[in-house]
């Protein structure tokens, strides 16, 4: 993998908005599939050693993805992402909420609105994600959904992997 691909993460603390931009060295249709097809999404969505397990996913306007982030100990954190609008291979929007394992929305937990944009130039695909929270503190919930555990381990493993690839 080329290492000069853009990765950009910024937070606007005044609007509780997170901006994530990333480039990928492949064509747009492949990146689009990786974000919109359940079987590919589950392969990368959860930072290891966590896993992503999608129970069902209906990628259509008004459709939903019901999935869990599963900890190495088997603990499940369920979320529902509703696709509020889709423009094929260009943009889609998500309304994201936490839920229990019966698909009941947890109203105590924060929700967020996502806006994902896809574009391609000379074989490099750019993905730009805007995540709007009600309060910046809501972000803490996402971090507490695991992720912290084994994180250093993951980064070290990745380092090794990339060194082997070079």
């Amino acid at each position, binding site marked *: *993998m080329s290492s000069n691909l853009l*990765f950009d*993460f910024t*937070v606007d*603390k*005044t609007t509780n908005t*997170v901006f*994530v931009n*990333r480039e*990928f*060295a*492949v064509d747009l249709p*492949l*990146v689009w599939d*990786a974000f919109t097809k359940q079987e*590919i999404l589950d*392969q*990368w*969505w*959860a*930072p*290891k050693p966590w896993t992503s397990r999608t129970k069902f996913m209906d990628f259509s306007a008004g459709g939903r993805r019901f999935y869990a982030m599963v900890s190495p100990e088997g603990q499940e954190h369920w979320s529902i992402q509703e696709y509020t609008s889709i423009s094929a291979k260009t943009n889609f929007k998500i309304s994201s909420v936490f839920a229990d394992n019966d698909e009941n929305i947890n109203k105590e937990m924060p929700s967020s609105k996502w806006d994902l944009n896809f574009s391609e130039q000379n074989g490099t695909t750019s993905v730009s994600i805007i995540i709007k929270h009600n*309060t*910046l*503190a809501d*972000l*803490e919930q*996402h*971090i507490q959904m695991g*992720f*912290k555990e084994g*994180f250093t381990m*993951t*980064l070290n493993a*990745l380092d090794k*992997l*990339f060194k082997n690839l070079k």
Partner: protein
Amino acid sequence: MRRDIFQAIADPTRRAIITLIALQAMTPNAIAENFNTTRQAISKHLRILTECDLVKQAYQGREIYYSLEIEKMKEIDKWLNQFREIWETRFNQLDQVLSTIKKQGK
């Protein structure tokens, strides 16, 4: 009373106060001169910032000087950086997946 640090930075006037006192310690009167608002309103903002441990007070004679707790501000960035790492890892994993799919397609 303990307050959420994000409540402190959620307000535009408080963010402006933070910017002001990051440069130098100031009295409430000197701070208020920079705003088109009452001294009482500024005092209220300073109280909230104090309750969040974002500012500290120092007495010089009869005057109270407010200055910024830089370390506390850094905590916010450190905390946000965790979120950055999640996305970084996630996308590095996606690189691997994309690379595998691409090879399979050929």
